[in-house]
């Protein structure tokens, strides 16, 4: 229809209270192109795409798709214009089936009322009546025809998916394929993928890339959001770089090096190297033997983990999300009940003890989900800074508590750990801090107590680069002070940069052990997915067990 690019976004502006998320950003994507959108966390990539998908209303600028102006009030409008999006956090409803998730919002009528249906005994003119079809679209639901179409699409792209299965029975890779099916089912011309590899194993990521290339060959335009340079080089044709909400530039991927991209992304030379002194390793601070525990559904998530951490040592736990990491972290701090095994901190056997006892024995914890477990977002910085230490005698003896002392303590933490944006620790709410500053506050609270053991689960996820450096250095400093650290991360670079020893967790077991100096990254990546030969699909028994435990909702 036009010679110009398929999608053109011009001068798009979006402001949130206090921040300009997108400052007059331009983006042009051609037909059949895989276009990378590169930037750090908080650079405005997701905001830009949520505007394109109708979730946010822009405060300025213009969007044209195929030459026509695009005014989106809701995702519904975006869908109708042929735009699909695979969100970073999957937009799937676990209790519903694959087919139900795919057709949701499409209002597929029952076969009896389907206009093009051949074996319906209702006369065609009746079925085509506007009132009848309107009612049928609301008050009936036909999954047979859609299920067939979804199965066909899945076969076409080599997806191994049972359309009748509930989402919660699928693994992460399969769930992502359902997300892509949702878009394909709606015949999209433009597909947005927001950090799609964040939750995938290296092998699954490869598979995803194959799929995307096949889609692009068929003329689909793809916007691929990422902050990983490697992926940009591997998959995209061109790449647009965002920094602090501004457009830094668009380049042909083949014409630039990774270093060039890194400079564009961060705005300065980045040499992410941490000077790490050799560890002075002391006595064991943690001894865990044969840990077994179940997840929320009562399915075994830890199947006999042995773990010893010595003072002054960082033990990195690598693995793909959902292989028992959260359960392990919680078991090590007394939050998750063990079905078997023992945990000892220093000389104290704490098997079955309350979280309180673990804290008293010098265990600190940085949970994976800052807002859910790490803080009370509606309470002030003062409450959050002191939530583990308020029992200490220095804040007053007996039943009474000296709130002035608590405030002083909170101020000390804020100052020493460079938590920015806090004027008054009793007024500022924890939830109003940025992700990086909140994480600094949490780390401050956990480390200022000078713990024996620190259990840190994804301590730098979703945090800006400046804060990441600070957080990592702080953890290394603490190691030198003699704290033993369990570092759980899905970011292999982080594991390799910080750890003294590396353990790979797979399906609730420690599958492999190595050190950063000896390690072969490929081998580690392979072990994360269950070793040779498998590609990360669930085994037959675990899927069967899931089916047996499941109870559908309809």
């Amino acid at each position, binding site marked *: 229809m036009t010679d110009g690019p398929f999608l053109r976004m011009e001068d798009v502006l979006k402001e*949130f209270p206090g921040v300009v998320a997108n400052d007059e950003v331009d983006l042009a994507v051609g037909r059949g192109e895989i276009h990378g959108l590169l930037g750090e966390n908080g650079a405005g990539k997701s905001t830009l795409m949520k505007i394109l*998908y109708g*979730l*946010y209303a822009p405060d300025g600028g213009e969007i044209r798709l195929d030459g026509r102006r695009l005014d989106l009030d*809701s*995702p*519904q409008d975006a*869908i*109708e214009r042929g735009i699909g*999006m695979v*969100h970073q956090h999957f*937009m*799937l*409803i*676990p*209790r*519903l089936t694959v087919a*139900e998730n795919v*057709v*949701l*919002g499409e*209002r*597929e*009528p029952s076969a009896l009322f389907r206009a093009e249906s051949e074996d319906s005994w209702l006369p065609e003119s009746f079925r085509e009546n506007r009132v009848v079809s309107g009612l049928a*679209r*609301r*008050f*009936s*639901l036909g999954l047979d025809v859609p299920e067939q179409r979804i199965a066909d699409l899945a076969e076409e792209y080599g997806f191994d998916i049972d359309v009748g299965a509930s989402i919660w029975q699928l693994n992460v890779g399969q769930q992502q394929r359902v997300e892509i099916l*949702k878009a394909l089912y709606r015949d999209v011309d433009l597909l947005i993928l927001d950090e799609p590899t964040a939750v995938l194993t290296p092998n699954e990521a490869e598979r995803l890339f194959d799929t995307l290339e096949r889609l692009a060959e068929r003329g689909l335009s793809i916007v691929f959001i990422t902050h990983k340079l490697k992926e940009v080089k591997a998959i995209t044709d061109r790449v647009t770089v965002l920094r602090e909400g501004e457009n830094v530039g668009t380049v042909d991927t083949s014409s630039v090096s990774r270093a060039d991209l890194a400079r564009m992304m961060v705005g300065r030379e980045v040499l992410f190297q941490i000077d790490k002194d050799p560890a002075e390793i002391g006595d064991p601070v943690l001894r865990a033997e044969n840990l077994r525990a179940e997840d*929320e*559904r*009562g399915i075994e998530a830890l199947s006999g983990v042995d773990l010893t951490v010595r003072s002054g040592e960082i033990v990195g736990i690598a693995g793909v999300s959902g292989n028992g990491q959260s359960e392990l972290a919680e078991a090590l701090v007394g939050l998750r009940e063990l079905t078997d095994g023992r945990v000892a901190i220093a000389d104290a056997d704490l098997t079955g003890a309350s979280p309180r006892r673990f804290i008293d024995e010098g265990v600190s914890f940085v949970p994976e989900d800052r807002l859910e477990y790490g803080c009370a977002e509606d309470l002030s910085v003062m409450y959050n800074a002191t939530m583990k230490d308020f029992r200490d005698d220095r804040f007053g003896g007996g039943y009474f508590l000296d709130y002035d002392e608590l405030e002083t303590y909170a101020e000390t933490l804020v100052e020493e750990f460079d938590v920015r944006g806090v004027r008054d620790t009793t007024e500022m709410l924890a939830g109003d801090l940025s992700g990086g500053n909140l994480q600094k506050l949490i780390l401050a609270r956990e480390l200022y107590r000078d713990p024996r053991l620190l259990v840190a689960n994804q301590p730098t996820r979703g945090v800006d680069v400046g804060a990441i450096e600070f957080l990592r250095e702080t953890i290394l400093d603490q190691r030198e002070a003699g704290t033993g650290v369990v570092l759980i991360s899905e970011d292999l670079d982080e594991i390799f940069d910080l750890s003294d020893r590396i353990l790979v967790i797979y399906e609730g077991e420690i599958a492999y052990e190595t050190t950063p100096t000896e390690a072969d990254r490929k081998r580690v990546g392979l072990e994360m997915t269950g070793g040779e030969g498998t590609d990360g699909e669930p085994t037959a028994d675990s899927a069967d067990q899931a089916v047996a435990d499941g*109870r559908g*909702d*309809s």
Partner: protein
Amino acid sequence: MAGFVAGLLDATVRASTVLVFASLGEIISERGGVLNLGVEGMMLVGALGGFVVTVVSGSYWLGFFVAGLLGVAMALIHAFLTISLSSDQVISGIMLTLLGTGLTTFFGQEWVSESISGFPRTTLPLVGEYLVGIPVVGEALFRSTAPDFIALALIPVVWFFLFRTNLGLEIISVGEDPETADTMGVDVFRMRYLCVLIGGFFAGIAGAHLSLAFSQLWVPGMTAGRGWIAVALVIFAQWRPERALIGAYLFGLLDALKLRSQAISVQVGAETPFAGTINPALDFVMHPTIMATYPYLATILVLFVTVVRFDSEQLGVPSALLEAYSRETD
């Protein structure tokens, strides 16, 4: 004895209808993600409104319908506050119960002595006259007021609506994960309004059934906690319409027993061991005021057993219940 059982069964069916209406409405509302604790208030408003309209117009059907609309009007307040303004669902619901109680006591005093001829009892159309002769259960099941039949018919209707239609799928999606529903093009606000308003309509007619069919009179506070029992029943029913019927019959039975407690006197003979202890104990448990507590205690017990037996995942609580939704709050 057969006569007593038949009578008790009959009273059970009649007493359960109000709970069927109210809990079906609450199931729809909660499936969409909105807890409505205003059921009790909406029922009272429906009971009085339906009663007044029936007295004035002489048409119990009109009264029944107006009661539903009054329930919708109350529900509209709840929907506006909790969906449009993201207010706390618990606070809004409790206040609507207080509001409904206050309004009906305020306006209802002059109607207390009025009498009406409410819904008459008829046999079920077509087959009823043949089946009503079945011993013990015939009268209970096949000779009822029209709302009793409607309530029973609504159970499969609501089941079909929730689990076999596109609107039902969208309602469930909105109650499970409004953000996902939104990205799939489901109008979250409209669906939630729809659910809350249907819930209000059902609560309104539940009240009207109480005043027009069950009691055929109006007394302030006549719902006596039935709205709250309905809320508890939804948990017992695990948010499934067909299971609500079981709960409704259980509480209908307790209600029926309470009404009949004066007629029962059970004592052991004086020669039985410990008769001196057993008989006063029997007197206590059969005392009308003590029997009046059984529906409430049974609700707590049933709630406890249900919650202990299932974890929240198995229980089937809609995942986004109590969660307000607005797009730009990242």
